[in-house]
């Protein structure tokens, strides 16, 4: 457990009153983000992301799967959030479990709402075969604001994921899929619609974006919003007493910041690939 003394908390609250945070950031400012893609050669897509002290690693595996139940989806997404031993050393068993299932649920819900992979190119045999994207998220270090780090890393990992071309051979009513072995015959996923989370902690009477672990410990509430590039809301979860008036103000900030954030991430990936 992260420990904060009363005096530290008091100083933190006072400093936030003045519009600054203990690491010098403004209230609505992210910590520096470091990003690396293609870190795992054996995965179809991968990324490593560091947000302040929080570090996550995401690997995406692409498979073809049977459609479960009647559904016309081209893509099924499977998320797992796992805490590596080093990060979970401070967590207690069951809490770590509920914590990771909460992250997982929020991510699922946001991706489902955003309908990210509504892409004709990804169509296989509707109602029979679909793509299975297995997104495994490994938390290497916990330094606050896990949600945002995970959603950013997931989006970047998906954006670099290569999907092999598939030829559908129809014979006697049954379908066979031939996967192109040629490593060049791959398409990159389009993730424009993928949302990202923006998380605020409510400290004193102020909301701060991208809380550090210390700020999270001192917070009395949280607001986590998933937005896509258009500024549409894909998921919201908040707790702790907050003013309704504050909410609309935050939403405009979220819309603006979200857009910048997504742009920055895409730029970084693009630069990384070209170099």
């Amino acid at each position, binding site marked *: 457990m992260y420990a904060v003394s009363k005096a530290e908390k008091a100083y933190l609250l006072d400093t936030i009153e003045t519009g600054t945070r203990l690491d010098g950031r403004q209230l609505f400012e992210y910590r520096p983000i470091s990003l690396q893609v293609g870190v*795992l*050669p*054996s*995965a179809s897509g*991968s990324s490593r992301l560091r947000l302040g*002290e929080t*570090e996550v*690693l995401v*690997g*995406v*595996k692409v*498979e073809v799967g049977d459609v479960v139940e009647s559904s016309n989806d081209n893509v099924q997404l499977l998320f*797992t959030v*796992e805490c*590596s*031993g*080093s990060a979970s*050393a401070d967590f207690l068993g069951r809490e770590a479990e509920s914590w990771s299932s909460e992250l997982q649920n929020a991510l699922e819900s946001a991706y489902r709402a955003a309908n990210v992979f509504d892409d004709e190119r990804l169509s296989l045999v509707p109602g029979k075969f679909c793509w299975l994207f*297995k997104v*495994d998220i*490994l938390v*290497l*270090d916990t*330094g606050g604001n896990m949600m945002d780090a995970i959603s950013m890393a997931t989006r970047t990992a998906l954006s670099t994921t290569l999907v092999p071309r598939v030829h559908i051979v129809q014979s006697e009513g049954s379908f066979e899929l031939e996967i192109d072995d040629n490593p060049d015959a791959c398409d990159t996923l389009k993730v424009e619609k993928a949302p990202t989370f923006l998380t605020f902690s409510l400290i004193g009477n102020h909301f701060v974006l991208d809380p550090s672990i210390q700020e999270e410990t001192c917070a009395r509430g949280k607001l986590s919003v998933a937005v896509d590039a258009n500024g549409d809301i894909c998921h919201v979860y908040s707790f702790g007493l907050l003013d309704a008036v504050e909410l609309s103000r935050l939403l405009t900030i979220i819309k603006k910041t979200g857009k910048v954030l997504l742009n920055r991430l895409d730029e970084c990936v693009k630069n990384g690939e070209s170099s």
Partner: protein
Amino acid sequence: MPREELISPDGLRTDGRRPLEIRKVTCRMGILPRADGSCHLEMGNTIVLATVYGPRELSSRQSSCGIIRCEYSMASFASTDRRRGKRSDRNSVEMASSIKKTFENVLLTDLFPKSRVDIFIQVLQADGSERSAAINAVTIAMVNAGIPMKDLIVSCSAGYMENTTVMDLNHVEMITRGPQLTLAIYASTERMATAHLESKASFEIFENLIAIAKKGCLQMFDVMHSSIERYSLNLIASRDHIATFGSRA
């Protein structure tokens, strides 16, 4: 099932190495600032992250010497077939316990009574010789954490296939089920710390495997020692550099 040959007529292996050649080893230390020691070790395509916490307070239990705990897990994306290497599955438990026992003897545990050291090993990518990679990574992480130990433990695997003994097996070579040995030795005394032989081998082959694995260990040691040295000298230079400046100012 016919397999493609593992050793080409020129005596080269599937990944282009010679039989007695280890893969490229790179390691980075101190990558997780919150841990006492950490090491990101790449042996070819095998990537292992080892983290060490401690020695730190051991709650409520009395013990005359330090206690070591170890956890080994494989990330779900580590191998080609996506499988979840749970921390609690039998192989991971066995691996963790074997690594724990290896380091119990080399750490000077009587120097930190009533304390514990936690080792966490995360395999990020598995391309053969995970056990060796894990042991090497933990050694470096221990050095990084400044925990006193008798010696460096270095590890390497060796296998026998197609009448050739090769060292530092990759995944393709590992699944052949031929005789293969993972050996860990104390670097300076060359005494055996840990050894695991998989699949049967005649006495002669076994002897040969041990000799080759030992050679591999020593090659590994050179790489590890020099990266520890480089890393440490970097830090020392950095610290002393500005210190002298400070005192002059």
